[in-house]
């Protein structure tokens, strides 16, 4: 049996890749896991960058939603969602179908990710 989904994102949490990139959507016998959080605390919230291990490769990713309840008026998702990203901040996929919280606009470095998002919450 497996442990339940982790609430916020830290090392070794399984995440769900939400964009339509080939790396995120091809099936593999191991789910994508977080191996490092680029944060002073090891806990990743919405808008934090993390290092993901997918299909035997290391890739950076951006957290777009987690199961942990955040500040009031912010949405809480039923799964830990993540968007694959390059080192300079460019997203790898071309479309994001799942809803993205508006809070991401606060940090100005993710404008390219927000440009490919379809729904906002």
């Amino acid at each position, binding site marked *: *049996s497996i442990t*339940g989904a982790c609430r916020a994102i830290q090392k070794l949490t399984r995440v769900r890749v939400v964009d339509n990139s080939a790396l995120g959507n091809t099936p593999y016998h191991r789910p994508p896991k977080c191996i490092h959080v680029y944060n002073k605390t090891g806990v990743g919230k919405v808008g934090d960058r993390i290092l993901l291990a997918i299909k035997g490769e290391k890739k950076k990713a951006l957290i777009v939603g987690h199961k942990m309840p955040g500040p009031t*008026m912010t*949405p*809480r*998702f*039923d799964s830990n969602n993540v968007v694959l990203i390059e080192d300079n901040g460019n997203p790898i996929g071309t479309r994001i179908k799942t809803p993205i919280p508006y809070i991401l606009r606060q940090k100005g470095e993710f404008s390219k990710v927000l440009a490919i998002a379809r729904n906002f919450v």
Partner: protein
Amino acid sequence: FSCSGYRINSDGKPEKFQPPPKPVIVDKQKQREERRFLSPEFIPPRGRTDPLKFYIERKDMIQRRKVFNIPEFYVGSVLAVTTADPYANEKTNRFVGICIQRGGKGLGATFVLRNVIEDQGVEVCYELYNPRIQAIEVLKLEKRLDDNLMYLRDALPEYSTFDMNMKPVSRLDHEEIPVNKLQVRMKPKPWSKRWERPKYNVKGIKFELPEKKMKEAQKWSQPWLEFDMLREYDTSKIEEKIWKEVSEELKK
């Protein structure tokens, strides 16, 4: 056609004109006044705090309600909330969802709305008295069998999906609030909480578990809890007083 004046009675004399019976007017105003709704966050929690604190809080709540209309709703009704968001286009953010929980007392009262958008379940916890909220619309007013619909997280997603552009369902003013006796089907176990246990007292789930599991769950029942006198908190008299106070203030 026949006229009553021309009709001949059994006596042989013409019948006197009988006016038609007066229509019975049922005064719906009185029926409406019998139903009172006091929002649950007005009722103070049981404790040793000074009632003055709750009185001042109620004054502030009434002040806010005079400026902004907070409609009557229950757990299980579908609401649409528009909030002011500095990071959204047009600075407003509209969210439609079913209310799964109402918590908190006083000015910190919250309600959680749940919806499934593009196969992703989203829940937002809103504060009733937050000035960022611009409008609360009740799209469908109804009650459910439970006070807490947290089990919808483990139910099939079709029970939590509501269209974002849903039209409000019209209902007459004096009708009683309908109770939706829907029994929800669940995803396969494991669930986030063991909803079959009597502690949660959930009536709105159609359990498809074997009889053995249901009997095993009853092992955790605590039948002495309902007879525990120290846990009793009778709110009827407090509600009466607060209802009178609140309705008087709001009419001014």
